[in-house]
């Protein structure tokens, strides 16, 4: 990569931006400073069959990485699949996005444009009365729902104790091995966090150290706050609109994401 970078900076006159780039943005630079003539040359170097195959491999790679709902890093896509086709990354990933939408009804979303992390989300809604369920649902999803809804209803951030105490009331003790979930604390603070459903961070200046929970980047894209509020309203037998602030937030977020996804 460093060799390429050299050639990039030598051949290009974009060094001004590069000089400001921190080490972390070096990779970014190697992507953004590709000239159109370089891309053009690369396109000519590969046959369309070769590029088709790359696109298929990236689709396959993303599906595999999504098996455990782990987010997908651009760096990994490049390292494991794209390899020598790096100059054509943008071409390829655009076609991958199109394939996901046209074949699978899925959307490849970049949740973190700075670190280039992707997730897959669904464009189709589940429907009541399916002859065969469209989703295979793990009971952990119920656990996740409880935590996400408490965070959302409490304004976006909560101390960890509130999570543990809520779960205890639901007969799930984070200190004990649970029949269905195993090590609950690990599922919540490790698995959900790595999947980017949750953020679990230290609260500064706390002694003993305290942690707080927020929604992770995946949840922001994958979860409908409006539908969540509707379900919470159902449980309380209360009009979702009576939680004024939450309802306002849910309506704005959902309508804006609707706009971007269509």
């Amino acid at each position: 990569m460093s060799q390429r970078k050299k050639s990039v900076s030598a051949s290009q006159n974009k060094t001004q931006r590069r000089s400001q780039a921190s080490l972390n943005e070096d990779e970014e630079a190697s992507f953004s400073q590709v000239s159109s003539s370089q891309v053009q040359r690369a396109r000519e170097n590969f046959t369309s069959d070769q590029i088709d195959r790359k696109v298929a491999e990236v689709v396959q790679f993303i599906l595999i990485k999504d098996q455990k709902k782990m987010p997908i890093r651009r760096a990994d896509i490049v390292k494991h699949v794209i390899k020598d086709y790096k100059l054509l990354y943008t071409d390829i990933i655009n076609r991958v996005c199109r394939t996901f939408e046209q074949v699978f009804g899925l959307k490849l979303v970049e949740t973190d444009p700075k670190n280039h992390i992707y997730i897959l989300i669904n464009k189709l809604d589940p429907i009541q009365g399916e002859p065969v369920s469209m989703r295979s649902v793990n009971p952990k999803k119920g656990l996740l729902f409880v935590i996400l809804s408490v965070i959302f209803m409490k304004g976006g951030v909560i101390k960890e104790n509130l999570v543990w105490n809520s779960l205890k009331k639901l007969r799930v003790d984070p200190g004990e091995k649970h029949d269905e979930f195993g090590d609950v604390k690990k599922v919540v603070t490790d698995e959900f966090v790595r999947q980017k459903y949750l953020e679990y961070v230290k609260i500064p200046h706390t002694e003993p150290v305290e942690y707080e929970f927020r929604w992770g980047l995946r949840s922001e894209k994958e979860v409908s706050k409006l539908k969540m509020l509707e379900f919470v309203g159902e449980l309380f037998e209360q009009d979702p609109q009576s939680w004024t602030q939450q309802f306002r937030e849910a309506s704005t977020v959902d309508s804006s994401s609707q706009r971007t996804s269509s």
Partner: protein
Amino acid sequence: MSDTRRRSRGSQEEPAGPSNGVGVRNRSERTGDMGDEDDVVGGPSGISEEDDDPTRRREIRSKYRDLINQVQQNREDMLNPANNKLTDVLEEANKLFVNVRQAREAALDAQLLVLATDLGKEKASQLHAEGSAFDPSAFAEHLLSFMGLNRLEDESGQDGHLEGYLPQGAWQKLANRSESCFKTAPSFHYMLGSFLAEPPPPRQRVERQRRVPSKEAKRIMPTQLKQMEESHQEATEKEVERILGCLQRYFADDSGEPISYYEFVIDPNSFSRTVENIFHTSFLIRDGLVRMFLDNDELPCIAPVEEGEIEPGGASIRHQCVISINQESWREIIDAFDIKEALIPVPEVLSQES
């Protein structure tokens, strides 16, 4: 809430004495409030003996810690707008503070006050928020109802004392309903290509069928087979009985002490004999003639079952387990238990042959 408390403290602080802020402030307070208890008032600047009573101080500290715990553990309950638990805690603390004389106890008071202020702030923000407040405790209750909690009759409603249990599949039910809030993509699972294609060891298969017995196997196997030929089953039964005899003898010799399972079955001179011993002993356990259990060191022990100890109905609970042993673990056990000789002697037929 914390404001009222501060104010009341402030007013108590006015008649402060010469030195030692904490002690003196309290003394004036105390003389006013509970003068009858304080006959032994010390000199103007010193701490009275009673003030320094370690038992009493320990008691105060322990009560403070209880309160702090209570606040930390029941945060949401404290925040619940429907109750006055936070005020209750502060009133309790005020009562304790009356008797606080020294810095160590005062520090605990301060710690509690910080917690209470924090909660007070949050509780206030809840009240000022527009629309309904969200009560996590009520939410948990609604979720339990949704998941079909089997509530037991004795619903005491005590804090931290959970009644009732969730039925099988309760979380699945919640997960299924929650799924409509998620736009989760389905995932693709496959088996082909998840491991490196590798032909099975066909050689091994052929070997297994046409293996030429090794020298040692040649030496032992034929006699054994001849012996078994008469009736495989009969031979096993004989051997099982012989082993039971051994066990009963050792048990009697050892004044009825249970015997270490490994010491009993392991033959340090022969791995195959060990496997056979394990095999035959398992029949004794299955038939309820011998029982197996873990001793204080969590090591397996066996002992013969006395006659009449087990009802003929065989009502005792049975467990089944698979024991695996290989040459390596066999040697490890010999070393660990320092086994020098086999407790079960080699059957006569075999020992004669070899």
